Structure formats: C-alpha cells, structure tokens
C-alpha cells in the first residue's frame, strides 16, 4: 500500500527495536516475578498437610492472673459464640483434652524411655489426613497420633543430644510403636494402647488423637467433669484479613503458627514487590520510549499526514500504520517475554517441585503482562489519534 509506505517513512528501526527491547525486559521481569511468586507461594502456604492454611489455632494469652488464681485461660460459651458471629469465621472447632492420665513409653536401641503425656483432639472435619489413617474404632488397640514437629525438634536437638540419646527421624518415629498406658485419676481403670505416629505438624502445638478415641476414652477413664475448651480451631474465609488480626489483638488471644514460614512468606512478598516495581518501572519507561518515538516519527511525517488528510483520507486510515506499528511491536515484546519466562520457569520448576512448590496459577502472570501491554497499546493508539487530528488543520 502506497499510503503505508508514505507514512512509515522516517521510521527508525533502531528506535523501535529500543522500545521492543525495553518493553520486553520490563514485561519479562513482571511476568517472571509474578509467576515465580505464584510457584513459590505454595511452598509456604501449604506448609502443613494436616490442617489447611485457612485454619487458625487460637488460644488465650496466659497471664500471671491465671497462674496465681489457678484458673485456666479457657474460652467461655459466650466468647465462642461471639467468635462464631464474626463475618470472617466459617466454623469454629473446640480442642477437647483428656480427663485421665497417659504415660507413653518407647523402646529405642535397647533403652526404654517413658514420659507423662496428654492428648487433645479436634473435630475430624478440620483434619486433612487420608481417611484410612485417621479415625478410631471403639475397642481397637491402635490409636493414630499427630505430634507437633516442635516436640521432635525439642527432643532431637535439645534433650537427645544432652542426655546422650539417639536422634529420631520422622520416618523412624512413624515406624516405632508407642506404648500408651491410660489410667483413670483414681488408678482403678486402666488400659494399654499402641500409638502410631501418622505425622508431624508445624501448626498444631499438641499431641492429637482422633475425636472418636477422645470421646470413647474419656467416657471410660475420665472423671466426667466438663472442662471449657482452652484452645479453638477456626476456619476463616480469608487468612490475610486485617479484621482477624485486630479481633485477636482486642480479645487478648494468640494464634499458633509457624513463625519461620510466615517470616519467609513475608520476605517473599517484599522481594516480589520490589521485583515487580522494577519491572513496572522499566515497562513504564518503555512506554515513554514508544511515545517519544511515535512523536518524532509523526512530527517528521506531519506534512505527509496533513496532505493525506487534505486528499480526504479518513483520520482512522491515516493513523492505521502507526497503530499497526504499536500493536506489532507490543505483541512482539509480549510474546518474547512469555517465551523467556516459560524457559525460566522450566529451569527452576524441577528444584521447586522438590521443595513442594511449583503449582502456582499459570494464568495470572501472563494476564498481568497482557494487561500492561494493553495499557501501552491503548494509550499510545489514543495519542496517535490526537496527533493525526492535530495535523489536520495546518501543515506547520
């Protein structure tokens, strides 16, 4: 087309290449940063296989008053129903605890070890363990147990090393039967069970048994005194909600959780934020490069644009070659960025999968890049329209 040839005259390939390169770099950083964040996030958010991240374990802060008065920091029925009324709460479960004595013993390397223990339980619907592993049939001699990872750490790196005992791995603990001796307070009724550790939890600072076992054993060995729940597990609609934090603060509560993981995910957020900001800044700069290139190009061709309009060419038609230039160069930069991010993702995916990540949303990052590209295309196209219109009246 003659008109395209005319209007593309004075076009500088170097300037366009400069735009494509900078736009590509900006977009690649944004898309790669977002994609990496998506992929890594799952490592921290799915930190515990036993309870979902939307569950918070809440307890009251223990104060000196509790110690002096000998009154437990427990939740009253009103406090629980108040919590249940909060808009961010889906459901609330109570921790039940045993009403009898438990002694656990384990045989390791010829040496025996025995300790007083306690159990707690939460409603089964809050626990994510494959159905067959969790649960209890009344009368059965085997009880599945979930132990806080902190206990194992405490034993391995605190107690075992100072007492000269062997360290225990998670898989070893899973294979070793725990002998549990259960007895009522008065010592009249007692029974032995075999405990099987099915997992270690980062987020539950307790020793957990199935709710069915708790109910059954409390009935048999307990003194049937009713206790208030001292801990609650809360299913929240959005864990990041600020309302949760302020409610917790206001009511003097504490949330149990893995601090390391939340710090790491905080750092991840900050670093991702910085990377995205850098990418967006470069993208914005590339936007201005394109804007300036088009201004120079159209200013040089202003006479031609004016003449074409004088011949009667529609404004849309005169702007078309410039819009096409914008669309093609932006599409090129975007596709290039996508290709590079794809390669980048392949390079880290393997290692990330080993860490339990790599299952991020695949659409969000490309969509964000597309959104930025769309903004650049639309704003520059509008600017082209304005410049054509300005060339309409006077040739100089």
């Amino acid at each position, binding site marked *: 087309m003659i008109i395209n040839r*005319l209007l593309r005259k004075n076009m500088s390939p170097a300037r366009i290449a400069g735009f494509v390169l900078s736009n590509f770099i900006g977009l690649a950083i944004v898309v790669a940063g977002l994609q990496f964040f998506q992929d890594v996030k799952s490592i921290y958010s799915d930190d515990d296989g036993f309870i979902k991240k939307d569950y918070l374990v809440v307890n009251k802060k223990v104060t000196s008053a509790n110690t002096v008065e000998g009154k437990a920091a427990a939740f009253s029925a009103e406090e629980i129903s108040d919590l249940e009324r909060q808009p961010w709460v889906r459901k609330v479960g109570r921790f039940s605890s045993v009403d009898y004595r438990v002694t656990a013993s384990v045989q390791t390397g010829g040496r025996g070890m025995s300790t007083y223990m306690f159990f707690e339980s939460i409603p089964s619907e809050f626990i994510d363990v494959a159905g067959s592993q969790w649960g209890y049939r009344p009368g059965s001699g085997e009880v599945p147990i979930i132990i806080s990872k902190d206990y194992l750490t405490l034993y391995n790196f605190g107690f075992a090393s100072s007492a000269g005992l062997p360290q225990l791995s998670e898989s070893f603990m899973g294979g070793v039967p725990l002998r549990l001796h259960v007895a009522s307070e008065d010592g009249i009724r007692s029974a032995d069970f075999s405990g099987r550790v099915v997992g270690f939890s980062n987020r539950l600072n307790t020793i957990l048994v199935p709710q069915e076992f708790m109910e059954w054993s409390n009935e048999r060995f307990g003194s049937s005194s009713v206790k208030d729940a001292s801990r609650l597990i809360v299913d929240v609609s959005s864990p990041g909600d600020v309302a949760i934090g302020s409610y917790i603060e206001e009511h003097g509560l504490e949330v149990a959780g893995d601090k390391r993981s939340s710090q790491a995910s905080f750092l991840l957020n900050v670093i991702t934020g910085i990377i995205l900001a850098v990418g967006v800044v470069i993208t914005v700069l590339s936007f201005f490069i394109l804007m300036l290139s088009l201004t120079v190009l159209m200013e040089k061709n202003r006479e031609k644009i004016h003449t074409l309009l004088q*011949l009667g*060419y529609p404004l849309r038609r005169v702007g078309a070659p410039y819009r096409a230039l914008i669309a093609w160069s932006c599409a090129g930069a975007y596709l290039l960025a996508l290709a590079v991010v794809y390669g980048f993702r392949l390079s880290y995916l393997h290692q990330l999968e080993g860490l339990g990540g790599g299952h991020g949303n695949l659409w969000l990052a490309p969509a964000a890049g597309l959104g930025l590209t769309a903004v650049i295309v639309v704003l520059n196209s509008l600017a082209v329209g304005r410049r054509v219109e300005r060339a309409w*009246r006077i040739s100089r």
Partner: protein
Amino acid sequence: MNRIDRIESIRLEGMLPKVFENESIPNSEVWRSDVVFRRGERWLVEAASGGGKSSLCAYMFGSRTDYLGRLYFNDVDVSGIPVAEWQRLRRCHIAYLPQELALFPELTALENIRLKASLAGDVQEERIAGWLKELGIDSRADYPVGRMSIGQQQRVAIIRSICQPFDFIVLDEPVSHLDEENNRIAARMVMREADRQGAGIITTSVGNRLLLDSLKTIKL
C-alpha cells in the same frame, strides 16, 4: 447540523482574514462583502500577491479557520462542520488544488494520482491515462514527481484534483508555470469534468489565469 448531500452554493458573509483586521482593504469585492458562488458557475478570484487568496482557498477547504465573518456551504456554517464530515466532503463534494501542489515527491506521477483516485472507489485507469496523454506527461507517468519540472508537477496535480466526485473545484494558481498551450488543455479538461458533474469552478490568479470560458471575475 444538516448533512450536506450536495454543495449548491458557497457563501461568504463579511469574511476577512484575522491578520487584516486592523487594515483597510480598498477595492476588495470579497473581503468584508457578501459573495455567493453557485454550483455550475465559473469564477476567477483575481488578486495581488499577499491579498489572501490562498487563505480564502484554505478557508473553503476547512484547512484554516483564522477568519472573521461567516462562510456557508448551502445554509451550513462551515465552522460547525466536524472533522470526519470535512473528510467526507473532501472525498465527495469539494476538490482542491493547493498552490503548493501538495504532491508526494518520492511517489511517481501515477502513484500520486492513484492515491487520490483510489479514495473515490474504483480507480478509473483509462481516464487517468487519457488525461496524462492529453497534458503530454504520459511518458513521465512512472517518474518520481520530485524529479519533474514545476510545470509538469502542476499538470500532475491538476489531474489528481479532478479524479474525484465534486460539486465545487477550487484551483489555487493552477497554471502559474504552464505555457498557453498547456493552459488551454488544462482549462478544457477541468471544464469538461466540471460540466460532466455539474460542478462550480473557483480559480485564483495573480497573473497567469486558467483560460476558462464564460468566466466571472471578482477582485480580492
């Protein structure tokens, strides 16, 4: 605003370029006067250099608006015509040959003409070839316009201006560099095309005027 389906008349009502605002312009039959050009008429606007004739042409073509007074197409004040409508008028109702010709020097004569002709729809290749031959530049059809003499360029521009539908054709100094022979040929061509379309002709001159028949003259 009424859509203009045909420009029947171009009416000037007390018009004056803004630059002349504080000057007295004696003997002008156009500025500060009421003038009506009708479709089918042939007009020569005679002017001294600097009298504002190119300004008048640009006003009638919508390229400039730096005037006082009013300019009407039929009953429509042209100052209210939106840009898109102007583009339609330029394609179908008013043809214009600017004094500076506004050819693209890097394009050939034929490309320059086609650039305009293709806007009207089908390019009338035979008619264009006939006009090029008539004006004696058919051998230069594939030359870049920038390498042609001013006289040849003027002939290319004349052909380009008539290869569209129009109710009025405005020719600003169309033959300043043409000899009498070519002037007559060009005049005949423009008249033939204008008559065929029932159009009016408005031409300007500071000296060498387009040799049209039955011409009404008005002094600027």
